[in-house]
């Protein structure tokens, strides 16, 4: 039983939504969903729905903040007021400011910023509906949107959270599991590079559990990475097919 006395595993060992412990929610990735942005993506992890847009490389204003040797990466993670159970004030919270930072740092690890000096690459992520795992879904969406915008990257990064519920590790926590579970550990991973680019832990884990949790997260990321690549391929395959 979880720390608040809420049971998160059913008697048959499955989770409340019927998933196995190492099972992702249904994941949907759509590329190029917005017309104005240079690149965009819609990502759903179950009921969590986020949209990411990329603008740039574009001019930086005011000009003096531009970097002479590489592009500035600017990122905003933001939750829509209607995305949560209680209405969320649209003003940025401390949580959103922190998450914008960790997502930006994760993305900066793969973008070839030195190819676009004196410009900015702007990444905007809006959480349309939240049901746990919004930062990791946002990371996936942002990275697919960057690829859609044609920004050269070393790899696509994707994210998923691993947590501990009723004493055992579980992949891709939803909101109830995050709220009443013992730990939540979002992980961002560049599958091609084999590098962890985002890592946070909120809750208690033993070091052995931590090492297992990282492995479980990587397995989840590998599946999402495949879906992200397929979504991108699908989008561009249809463009490159000869017409008529």
């Amino acid at each position, binding site marked *: 039983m979880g720390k608040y006395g809420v049971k998160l595993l059913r008697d048959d060992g499955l989770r409340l939504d019927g998933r196995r412990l190492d099972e992702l929610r249904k994941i949907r990735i759509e590329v190029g969903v917005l017309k104005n942005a240079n690149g965009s993506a819609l990502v759903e992890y179950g009921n969590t729905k986020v949209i990411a847009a990329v603008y740039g490389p574009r001019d930086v204003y005011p000009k003096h*903040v531009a*970097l002479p040797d*590489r*592009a*500035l*990466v*600017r*990122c*905003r993670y*933001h939750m829509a007021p209607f995305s949560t159970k209680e209405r969320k004030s649209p003003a*940025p919270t*401390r*949580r*959103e*400011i*922190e998450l*914008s*930072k*960790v*997502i*930006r*740092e994760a993305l*900066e*690890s*793969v973008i070839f*910023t030195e190819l676009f000096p004196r410009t900015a690459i*702007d990444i905007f992520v809006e959480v349309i509906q939240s049901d746990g795992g919004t930062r990791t879904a946002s990371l996936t969406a942002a990275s697919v949107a960057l690829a859609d915008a044609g920004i050269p990257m070393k790899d696509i990064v994707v994210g998923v959270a691993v947590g501990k519920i009723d004493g055992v590790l579980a992949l891709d926590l939803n909101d109830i599991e995050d709220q009443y579970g013992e*730990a939540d*550990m979002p992980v961002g991973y*560049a599958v091609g*590079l*084999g*590098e*962890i*680019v*985002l*890592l*946070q*832990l*909120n*809750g*208690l*884990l*033993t*070091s052995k559990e*931590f*090492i297992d949790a*990282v*492995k479980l997260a*990587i397995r989840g990321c590998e599946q999402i990475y495949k879906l992200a690549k397929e979504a991108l391929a699908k989008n561009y395959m249809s463009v490159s097919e000869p017409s008529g």
Partner: protein
Amino acid sequence: MISLSTTPIRSIVIPRYKKDAIVAAVKKGERIDGRRYSDFRRIEVSLNPVSRANGSAQVKIGSTMVITGVKAEIGSPYPDTPNEGVLQVHAEFVPLASPIFEAGPPDENAIEVARVVDRGLRESRFVKLDELVIIPGKKVWSIYVDIYLLDHGGNIIDASMLSSTLALYACRLPRIMVSGEEIVIDRDVYDKQIPLGDPVVSVTVGFIEDYLLVDPSIEEEAVLDGKLTFIFDKKGNLAGIQKTGVKGIKTKTLEQALELSQKKSQELFELIEKVISSSENYSKPLA
């Protein structure tokens, strides 16, 4: 604009040759300040240098200087946790602490430090929030932990975590009398400690390629690929992690960093033990 996280444009100016020297030293198994990879810098502690606060602690790790003040007030609980006290952690990187800091509301770096410390104090159950209730569902103690960075010499998180922990130990609540819904505060007698569990510590390890450096200085931070902060409770459980920096880390290096930081956490637990068991030796003026 504040809600947009931007690649830092203000950073400490360190000459190229010095950066090269730092990296060269690391690759030779050394550090430019003579430390081993696994060494913390010298840590100095002063308890309750600020008598106006309910509790305070100044911590220096090398040239990094942090003072944390704790203030306790009687307030209302959050609606979703009616039977828990309130804990709030804030951090300010004031402009006197570094040429790269500007006056204004806390930026993303200060917010990140405060939130990492907050998660550590909360998840380790160091602050026993359920014992801070005065009238269930109505009145609770609200504990405000304010982290004030006075000199930025690198590894702000560990200095902030240590000074917050010690300031909470040093904190005394005023005596209160409760009759029905009425609370009378006796501001002459401060004799109640905040209910605290086992202490919690953080150990930050910088990484550059496969090299791991405990407690990076500000000059080392300028050449690092990134940093990992591990928070441990007394039993050795992880009570929080935060990765910072714009480069990824391999799983194997991550596991080595965990092992190293877990070993180092013992030194910090010993230090905390020593400070609280002989607190009179640490009641030094602000310095």
